[in-house]
């Protein structure tokens, strides 16, 4: 093929792409398809890279135990504990006492903090700003550097206690070094808790593949096919003129390269924005490390080229190679149609009311597989109903759109199936995730009723009565403190004013708690009281304290922890039942990834469905054009488009949620429902907005197509 002919063919394609035929729907679809596919590929690659980089940084936090031959001055004593901010997940706090000048510094620390001071991660400083984090572990001497953190969102604190750690103390480890190549992550690692709270290895990448990459690939295929009428005619013409596949390829390439390039440029701009500085993702609040992105620039480059090439190939090959010949899968689908239709309700009922979780999974998988047939039958029945009503009431839009739906139900079913399947999968994943948060509602129930007016305080390590007195003196005015022991019975030790604030008598006796919060906390156990200072309850260096406000107001977050700085290793605070909640915090936060990635995938699928339906409608628009021009009726486009694009799209989302909730909710083992009304509402609203946009766009494009219609010209 001569260079001149090639250039001419590219020019033909380029001219076709810039024409306003189909209202630019294919142009826009290819831009979005390329954008979402490049970003999805980049996200999968980045997830793998960040995970690997995190693992590597976590390995650097491994504690290498000193052996007997290690000189004592070259070691550091390390004791790890757990803390949490109010309403947040747990994090590790690491107490360190260097034994000498040669003691190894933990990664991310430039110098040893002074005694009674701490070095914390920037994220802990940020999240704890409203909870008095600057006084929680003593004075803040600095922040942990990047090499010492798994990622920028890690909560971590290195604390050097006022009194050096005792090597004989339980849980204290003498460490000769940090890190070690090839070390498995274990509890002997400062990042062990974060690793424990992570999703399973490769989970984010897997979610990205399933919920972002697959929908993006689907969008690319839809974009390649959408508004194909003119292209099909053009290709038939080129073939009739003696053109070969290569000629059609060059024309198709000329038509697709501009929108595909635009989409790639958009995606590269987004990636560049992420590569310039650390960026915080919405919903999950995760900071994507820019350095990790820059480190894998070559992989991102290859991924971008690959994704771009895929969209371009899909667009070009779809145009150049016509689908023909026998379709064995279609024939098989026809033969099994009745069976699949009958099986759909069976699978739905099996998923909802099956005797075990296994039958639930089988039912769910079966319901998803047989769903397209059920949707097609539903669409067909709806179409027949609409057409009948249109005929009776003499409504042309109802008649024509209904007949079209009745004649091509599979076309609409194919378009909406992706959205329905994605919703069901998302609801299933969120339900499974919610199973990890069992009992979190118990904490919620107490906090909802009594707020933070009653808080347990657990000093870490052995304490002295003097330290307890110091703590009681340090708590803010209005907050009373009593000591307690339990079980088998709850025994309170407090001053008479403190006991009076709990409406308890000041004498050694068994009483009934009349204060509601206390009653809820004590539960069914017997309650005895004893007058005395809380410090008098210290036994063998240990005591549990109960702080409360007499008027039932909340105790400000962090003030008890800050007062607890008088104890050797501070104090852990918890409202009754909060430990359940704290345990559930990590799975709750992890569910954010499902919502974020699933939301993106769902948006892409809604877009793909909307564009596919718009393409279907444009075929109808072309068929009706001569008649609408002659009769001067343009309203039919708006009304029929609403029926062919807006209604199926919104119905798919609503129906997907209805079937999904019905089949998936019985599998839940927790009362915590991650499928929140706001999540469902947002998805439905997004579908409605997308439907409205597609509706107005396809109707406008069809009206424009009708306006260009002329007798004797059938090339529009």
């Amino acid at each position: 093929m001569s260079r001149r002919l090639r250039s001419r063919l590219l020019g033909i394609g380029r001219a076709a792409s810039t024409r306003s035929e189909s209202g630019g729907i294919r142009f826009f679809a290819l831009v979005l398809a390329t954008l979402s596919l490049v970003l999805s590929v980049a996200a999968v690659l980045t997830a793998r890279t960040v995970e690997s980089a995190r693992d590597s940084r976590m390995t650097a936090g491994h504690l290498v135990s000193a052996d007997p031959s290690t000189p004592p001055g070259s070691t550091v004593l390390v004791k790890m504990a757990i803390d949490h901010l109010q309403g947040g997940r747990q994090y590790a706090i690491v107490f360190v006492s260097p034994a000498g000048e040669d003691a190894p510094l933990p990664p991310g620390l430039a110098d040893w903090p002074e005694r009674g001071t701490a070095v914390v991660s920037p994220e802990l400083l940020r999240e704890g700003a409203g909870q008095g984090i600057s006084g929680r572990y003593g004075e803040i001497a600095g922040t942990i550097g990047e090499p010492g953190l798994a990622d920028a969102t890690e909560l971590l604190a290195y604390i050097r206690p006022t009194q050096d750690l005792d090597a004989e103390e339980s849980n204290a480890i003498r460490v000769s070094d940090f890190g070690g190549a090839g070390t498995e992550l274990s509890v002997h690692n400062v990042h062990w808790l974060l690793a424990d709270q992570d999703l399973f290895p490769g989970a984010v990448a897997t979610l990205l593949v399933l919920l972002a990459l697959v929908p993006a690939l689907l969008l690319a295929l839809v974009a390649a096919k959408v508004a194909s009428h003119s292209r099909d005619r053009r290709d038939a013409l080129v073939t009739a003129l003696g053109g070969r596949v290569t000629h059609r390829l060059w024309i198709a390439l000329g038509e697709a390269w501009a929108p595909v390039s635009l989409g790639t440029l958009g995606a590269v701009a987004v990636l560049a924005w992420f590569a310039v500085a650390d960026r915080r993702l919405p919903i999950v609040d995760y900071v994507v490390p820019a350095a990790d992105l820059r480190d894998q620039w070559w992989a991102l480059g290859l991924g971008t080229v690959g994704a771009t090439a895929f969209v371009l190939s899909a667009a070009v090959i779809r145009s150049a190679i016509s689908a023909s010949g026998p379709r064995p899968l279609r024939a098989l689908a026809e033969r099994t149609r009745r069976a699949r239709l009958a099986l759909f309700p069976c699978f739905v009922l099996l998923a909802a009311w099956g005797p075990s979780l296994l039958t639930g999974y089988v039912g769910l998988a079966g319901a998803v597989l047989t769903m397209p047939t059920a949707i097609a039958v539903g669409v067909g029945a709806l179409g027949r109903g609409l057409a009948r009503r249109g005929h009776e009431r003499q409504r042309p839009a109802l008649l024509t759109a209904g007949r079209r739906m009745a004649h091509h139900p599979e076309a609409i079913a194919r378009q909406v199936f992706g959205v329905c399947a994605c919703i069901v999968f998302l609801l299933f994943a969120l339900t499974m995730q919610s199973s990890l948060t069992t009992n979190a509602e118990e904490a919620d129930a107490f906090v909802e009723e009594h707020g933070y007016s009653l808080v347990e305080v657990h000093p870490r390590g052995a304490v002295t009565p003097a330290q307890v007195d110091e703590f009681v003196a340090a708590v803010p005015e209005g907050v009373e403190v009593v000591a307690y022991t339990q079980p088998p019975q709850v025994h309170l030790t407090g001053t008479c004013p403190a006991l009076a604030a709990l409406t308890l008598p000041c004498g050694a006796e068994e009483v009934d708690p009349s204060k509601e919060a206390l009653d809820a906390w004590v539960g069914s156990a017997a309650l005895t009281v004893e007058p005395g200072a809380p410090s008098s309850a210290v036994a063998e260096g240990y005591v549990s304290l109960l702080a409360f406000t007499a008027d039932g107001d909340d105790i400000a977050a962090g003030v008890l922890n800050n007062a607890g700085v008088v104890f050797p290793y501070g104090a852990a605070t918890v409202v009754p039942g909060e430990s359940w909640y704290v345990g559930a915090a990590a799975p709750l936060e992890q569910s954010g990834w499902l919502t974020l990635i699933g939301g993106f995938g769902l948006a892409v699928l809604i877009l793909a469905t909307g564009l596919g339906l718009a393409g279907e409608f444009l075929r109808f628009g072309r068929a009706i054009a001569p008649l609408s021009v002659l009769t001067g009726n343009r309203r039919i486009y708006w009304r029929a488009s609403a029926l062919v694009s807006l209604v199926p799209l919104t119905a798919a989302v609503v129906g997907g949620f209805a079937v999904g909730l019905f089949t998936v909710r019985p599998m839940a083992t927790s009362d915590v429902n991650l499928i929140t009304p706001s999540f469902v509402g947002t998805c439905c609203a997004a579908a409605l907005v997308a439907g409205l946009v597609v509706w107005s766009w396809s109707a406008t494009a069809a009206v424009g197509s009708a306006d260009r219609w002329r007798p004797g010209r059938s090339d529009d």
Partner: protein
Amino acid sequence: MNTHHALRVDGLSYRVGDRQLFEDLSLTLPAGRSTAILGPSGSGKSSLLSLALGLVKPQAGTIEVGGRDITSLRRKDLARLRAESVGMVFQFAELLPELSPAENVALAALLAGRSGPDLDEEVTRLLKELGVPRSRSVATLSGGERQRTAVARALINRPRLLLADEPTGALDEKNRDLVADMLFELPERHGCGLLVVTHDETVAQRADQVLTVRGRGLRSRTASRR
């Protein structure tokens, strides 16, 4: 009764880009009469139909449909006039495959704003008159039957002007004769003016008046059957 001509074109000039298609073209088509326009491809036959439909505007001259000059009408009025007074038959029928023949015909009336209990009756009568068999789908109709359905659709709004663009171009000889005979009987039966654009002389000969596009105007050919 409206005594105006179905179509009257006077002093028409029409240019597309730098190509002058028509200059000072005149044409009169009385109600109840038929005119066939012959001409080679690219001579402007279809453009003449676009002008008669008001889809494009001439640079000069007037085009009257039922006595109203469509060149000066606003878009909305033009659409109404087209719906009420003009019907059209296309070369490939352009029927909606999902609808029955009766529904295809009724659709044109519904889109023009007509409705009511008499409509179905009128559609049935018209299809019967044109010899279209009852069917649930247009897919089962022959080419000639499809084209007669298209004619019924063009007539359902009782147009004063009936336009036909190569109406027999996609038919075999037998069906061509059947459709052409039926088409040229319509002006007398329905009182409309029929303007047929064709390149088929055997079809054109059935018209009351045969014109050819020559130069930038129309020239009269031999008179017709009457």
